[in-house]
C-alpha cells in the first residue's frame, strides 16, 4: 500500500513538475536570450519569445520523415517529466539520474531513426556528449549519498549544513558538465540555440514543427531540473537557505550564459578529454577525501 502511495505521489509530482517547470523553464530560456543579446550589444527578443516560438511550432503542419520518431520524442518528454517528478517529490536521486539518461537515449534514437546524414552526425555527437558527462552525473549521486547518507533528495532538508561544503569538488565537476547538459558553447556540439550551424541543426535537423516544440519543452524542463540539481547543494534545514539558493542559482545560470557567449565551440576530442579529466580530478579528489578522511 505504501508503495502504491509513493508511486502515485511520484506520478502526481511529475504532472505538477511538467506544468510548473515548463513555465519556469520558458522564462529561464527567455532571460537567457535577453541577457545573451545584451552581452552582444543588442536589444534582444521579448522575454516570452521562447513561448511564442513553441506556440508557432505547434501551429505548423504535421509532417514527419518516418512513423517512429515522434513516438520516441513523446516518450523522451514523458520520461523527463517523470525524472522531475522523482526529484521534486524527494525521491531517489540515482533514479532521477537514470531516468534523465533514458530520456536522453530516446532523444538520440529519435535522431538516429531519421536516417538523415545531418541528424545522424548530430546523434553521434550527442551520444559522445552523454558519454562525456555521464561519469560526473553518477559520481554526483554518489557524492550526494556520501554527504547525506541517503540517495533520497528529501534528506537535504534535514541537513545541518549545506552539502556544498563537503562536496565542493563534485560541485565544480557538475558546473563543468552543466555546460554540456544545457547545450551551451563551447560544448554545443550536437545542437544549440545559435543562429548558424555548420551541420544544419544537428540532432534536430529532421524534427520539424510540433516535434521541435516537444524538444524545446523538454529542454525547458531539463534546464529547470539541472538548476535544481545545483540548488540542492545550497539547501539545509533552515529557511534562510531560500534566498541563498535563489541567488546561487541565478549566479550560476548567469555564469553559464557568460561562458556561452565567451567561448568558441571546441572539437569533440577536447570535450571528451576535458570532461573526463575534470570529473576524475575534481570528483575523484572529493570522493577520496570523503572516503579516506
Amino acid at each position, binding site marked *: 500500500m505504501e508503495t502504491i502511495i509513493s508511486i502515485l505521489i511520484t506520478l502526481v509530482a511529475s504532472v505538477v513538475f511538467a506544468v510548473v517547470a515548463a513555465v519556469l523553464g520558458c522564462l529561464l530560456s527567455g532571460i537567457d*536570450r535577453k541577457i545573451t543579446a545584451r552581452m552582444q550589444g543588442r536589444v534582444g527578443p521579448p522575454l516570452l519569445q521562447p513561448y511564442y516560438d513553441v506556440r*508557432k511550432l505547434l*501551429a505548423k503542419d504535421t509532417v514527419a520523415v518516418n512513423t517512429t520518431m515522434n513516438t520516441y520524442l513523446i516518450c523522451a518528454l514523458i520520461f523527463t517529466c517523470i525524472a522531475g517528478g522523482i526529484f521534486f517529490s524527494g525521491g531517489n536521486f540515482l533514479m532521477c539520474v537514470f531516468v534523465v539518461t533514458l530520456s536522453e537515449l530516446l532523444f538520440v534514437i529519435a535522431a538516429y531513426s531519421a536516417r538523415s546524414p545531418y541528424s545522424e552526425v548530430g546523434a553521434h555527437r550527442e551520444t559522445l556528449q552523454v558519454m562525456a558527462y555521464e561519469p560526473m552525473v553518477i559520481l554526483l549521486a554518489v557524492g550526494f549519498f556520501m554527504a547525506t547518507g541517503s540517495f533520497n533528495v528529501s534528506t537535504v532538508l534535514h541537513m545541518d549544513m549545506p552539502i556544498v561544503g563537503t562536496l565542493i569538488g563534485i560541485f565544480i565537476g557538475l558546473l563543468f558538465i552543466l555546460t554540456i547538459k544545457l547545450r551551451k558553447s563551447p560544448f554545443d556540439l550536437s545542437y544549440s540555440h545559435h543562429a*548558424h550551424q555548420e551541420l544544419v541543426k544537428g540532432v534536430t535537423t529532421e*524534427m520539424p*514543427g510540433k516535434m521541435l516544440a516537444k524538444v524545446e519543452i523538454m529542454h525547458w524542463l531539463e534546464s529547470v531540473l539541472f538548476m535544481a540539481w545545483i540548488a540542492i547543494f545550497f539547501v539545509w534545514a533552515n529557511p534562510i537557505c531560500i534566498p541563498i539558493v535563489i541567488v546561487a542559482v541565478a549566479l550560476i545560470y548567469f555564469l553559464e550564459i557568460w561562458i556561452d557567449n565567451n567561448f568558441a565551440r571546441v572539437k569533440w576530442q577536447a570535450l571528451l578529454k576535458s570532461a573526463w579529466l575534470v570529473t576524475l580530478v575534481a570528483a575523484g579528489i572529493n570522493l577520496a577525501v570523503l572516503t579516506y578522511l
Partner: protein
Amino acid sequence: MSYVSKSPWIIHYDGSSCNGCDIEVLAALTPLYDVERFGIINTGNPKHADIFLITGGINERNISVVQEIYNQMIEPKVVIACGVCACTAGIFKDCYNIIGGVDQAIPVDVYAPGCAIRPEAIIDAVVEGLGILEEKAKKLEAEKKGA
C-alpha cells in the same frame, strides 16, 4: 494576431547573387539592426523555417535546389525575393544561364527590390510577409478543422 507572426524563422538562400544582398541580409542580424527583436532567427534548416529569403536570380543549376528547399519547408510558409535580381533577375536578366526572378521557380509572396537591398527594406519585407504568413496559417487551421 497569432503566434506565427511573433516568431518568424528564416532560411536564406543565395541564388546567383553578386553577394551584395547576402551581406545586407547578414547585416540585418547584427547588433545595429538586431532582427531578433522581432523573434526573427536565421536557421540553416528549411524544416525549421517559416520564411524563405532568396537573393539573386534563378539559373539553370539552382532552380531545382530552390524548388526542393521550398518543398521541404513546412506549411505555413512565405517566400521573399530580396533584391532586384531575385525579383526580376535584374542586371543578369539577359545572361545565357539565367532563367529569371525567383517567381520562375516557386510562388513569391513579397518582392523587395534594391541593389543592393538595404537592411531596413529586408525588415520591412519580412514584416510584410508576416501578414501573409498569418493569412496562410488561418487557412491551414480552417483546412484542418474542415478535414
